[in-house]
């Protein structure tokens, strides 16, 4: 069972590294892609956590989380492009 928890731990560390770009990022779109990366890692980690805790509900939450973050990214993109 150990390899799953180690993978989740590494993904957590990678999320913090992506958050460095979120703080540094000189422009708005840079910050948005950093948030997008953190969201992708969150989904991957949640799917793995479903195996760690033997609970399918984690995977379902990951699907809904991904779709919501997709909609949020599209709206932020519209705002940046000046179409909103």
């Amino acid at each position, binding site marked *: 069972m150990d390899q799953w928890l180690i993978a989740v731990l590494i993904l957590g560390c990678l999320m913090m590294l992506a958050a460095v770009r979120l703080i540094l990022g000189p422009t708005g779109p840079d910050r948005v*892609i950093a948030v997008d990366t953190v969201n992708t890692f969150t*989904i991957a980690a949640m799917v793995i956590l479903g195996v760690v805790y033997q609970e399918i509900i984690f995977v379902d939450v990951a699907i809904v989380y991904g779709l919501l973050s997709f909609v949020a990214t599209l709206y932020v993109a519209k705002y940046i492009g000046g179409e909103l």
Partner: protein
Amino acid sequence: MAATLDIITSALLGIGVVFNALGVIGLLRFPDLYTRMHATTKATTFGSIFTSLAVIVYGLATFIGKSDTQYLTLAIHAFLAMGMLAFTNAVSAHALARAAHRSGQFPAQAVCDRLAEAKS
């Protein structure tokens, strides 16, 4: 049987984590928005596909071993999460690149920019 499954899932998880790490290094290292977007969309999508594949393999193997339908459901839902991730990452990367170019961010160190020429 269990040892083989452990080795296969560890290998898939390892590949996935390595590509995710490469995506983050590219995000921190590349000089401008568009090249950073290359690193994040491709590498993190590929890495997450492999970590999800590990879960799918685990679910299917346990379903065949124990014939408990709970594990089949786990595999199917992980597969759905994987497909959704690949699809939405591509579309949102396209939307963000288009919006950034419209808002006046041009690629650094570029050898040519046909889109800016076409719009002017």
